[in-house]
């Protein structure tokens, strides 16, 4: 008792109100250079996506007389095959691509995470059923399956989003279940169980916050891979409705130019690559700082 008292006094003297915000600020202060770079890039992308109409020099579908115009003062990155300003398309592409990728990833995580955590929590037949269903889905070649589903339901943006989300959610399920299994054996979950908490509380308050770090990291990666899936699908002939610009399709449309050393297709491809690298930098740092993975010491 006596020895506890001075301890309290010292902590009171140093007391700082530790809110979520102040914790975040602390973490940010200590972020390494790569993470800052990553966050800067992501921020730029988000700003560009949100304010595309204000930033872009022309309208998204505006056609000029000269197709494949060279880089010039008027058209910073030249024009595309129809004479649309490349820079404008890239800027609007950010909006469409990031929007679609974000919605898709959100859907796949909402579904995969909920089911994965439920499976981890309840085990038994529910786990068996879901795990086997995921096995089945994963054993079907996903690209070809997506192609078939898109042919059945038509390649509109909503069905594109839902189908990619469905196929992606299988991996999320596996990850969520695996991480969830590590968390459900923790004693604080047992405490909640002993207290008599219901499933919603268990999932939302006890398990979810503790499985988030690796899942958020995965979110970053999956988010980037959606672009690649869209590019691959447009390679096979199904993709986003024109005249909307999206990077995946833009890479595909101009890809043949690269065999002659024309840099045009590098622009959208580079935009994707830069974002992927940026997201990964942030993810690495995030994982490191929440030590969900003991990647670096």
């Amino acid at each position, binding site marked *: 008792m006596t020895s506890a008292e001075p301890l309290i006094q010292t902590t009171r003297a140093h007391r700082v109100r530790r809110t979520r915000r102040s914790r975040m600020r602390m973490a940010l202060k200590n972020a390494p250079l790569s993470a800052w770079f990553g966050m800067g890039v992501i921020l730029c992308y988000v700003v560009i996506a949100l304010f595309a109409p204000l930033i872009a020099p022309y309208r998204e579908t505006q056609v000029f007389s000269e197709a494949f115009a060279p880089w010039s003062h008027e058209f910073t990155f030249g024009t595309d095959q129809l004479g649309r300003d490349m820079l404008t398309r890239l800027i609007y592409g950010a909006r469409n691509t990031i929007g679609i990728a974000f919605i898709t990833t959100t859907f796949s995580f909402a579904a995969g995470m909920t089911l994965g955590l439920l499976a981890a929590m309840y085990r038994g037949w529910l786990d068996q059923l879901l795990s086997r269903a995921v*096995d*089945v889905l994963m*054993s079907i070649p996903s*690209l070809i399956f997506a192609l078939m589903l898109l*042919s059945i339901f038509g390649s509109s943006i909503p069905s594109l989003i839902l189908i990619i989300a469905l196929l992606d959610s299988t991996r999320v399920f596996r990850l969520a279940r695996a991480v969830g299994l590590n968390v459900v054996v923790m004693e604080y979950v047992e405490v909640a169980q002993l207290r008599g908490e219901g499933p919603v509380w268990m999932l939302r308050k006890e398990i979810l916050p503790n499985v988030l770090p690796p899942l958020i990291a995965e979110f970053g990666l999956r988010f980037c891979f959606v672009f*690649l899936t869209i590019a691959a699908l447009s390679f096979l002939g199904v993709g986003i409705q024109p005249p909307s610009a999206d990077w995946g399709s833009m*890479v595909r449309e101009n*890809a043949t130019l690269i065999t*002659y050393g024309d840099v045009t297709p590098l622009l959208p491809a580079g935009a994707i690559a830069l974002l992927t690298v940026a997201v990964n930098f942030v993810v690495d740092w995030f994982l490191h700082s929440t030590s969900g993975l*003991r990647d670096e010491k």
Partner: protein
Amino acid sequence: MRLNSVAKTVLQRLGLGLITLFIVSIIIFSAVAMLPGDFAKATLGQSATPETVAALQHEIGLDRPPVERYFSWVGKMLKGDFGSSFASRTGYRRTVAEIIAPRLYNTIFLAVMTALIAVPLALGLGIVAALYRNSWFDRVVNTVTLTTISFPEFFIAYMLAFLIISRDTFAGTEFAQSLPAWLAISINWTLNVVPKFPTLANINDETPFWDHVWRAALPSITLTLVIVAHMMRMTRAAILNMLSSPYIDMARLKGMGPMVVVVRHALPNAWAPIVTVVAFNLAYLIVGVVIVEVVFVYPGVGQLMVDAVRSRDVPVVQACALVFAAAYILLNLIADIISIATNPRLLHPR
């Protein structure tokens, strides 16, 4: 006793695998049935007339109800008969087995060839990156591999093709002429160091072995670039994870050098996650290479399946899907068995 429990697991997994295959076949069959059009309409295309479509449908049995067709297919499957392609005609039978067999060989050939390059490369890079983590080597390898996976595969393939074309054409480009002479010459020299790999990998069953290897070089390099990043990052993470284990400190305290620590002490315990990710990537090499096959005109199963889906050639689609699913299941099973075999806790229970 121990072997029995491992064998039991394997048998159980095989059983589950068969059920999975069965469900996959139902899903694929239904999906093809739901696709607009059928084989007859797809082959006749723009020139289809109702009568010719009906005649073709009748010949290949498409006029029967789908459920009946599915069960007759299952019945034949159980007898080991994959059936014939819809492209067969009277007097000209093309069995699914004879269509798939050479392509499956090609697919496996490419997968094995790529794996032989990619797996040692990924493990080596992963180990070295883990050993010298946060060094410039680690950072460069990480960023480069990340960049390669963030480009679409076909894009990487085209860039490789560009390199090959540039061997001959670089000197003549305006770009080359705008460079200082020494630079242009050295770039040209560098380009010519690259072997002139064929950009067409159109092998057939008469292609000799080494020619096959030669022709499959570019597809293999493309796929290597695509999968190395994933495997390398996983190897690095798994080893780093192990490096924080007490027994690694122990090995160091026993005076072991860094290479011995990683190879003898960390790696044997990291096999399970590494093997899992390798199996995942091998499965990808068999199942997911459609695009590379198309770009390099490599006759593999992926392209066959896409073709078959386009022409609604149900027996071929079914067989391809089953081959893929079986490959996926088997590879995962093998990965699990290796995980058990490399883990004394599972192999030698108390």
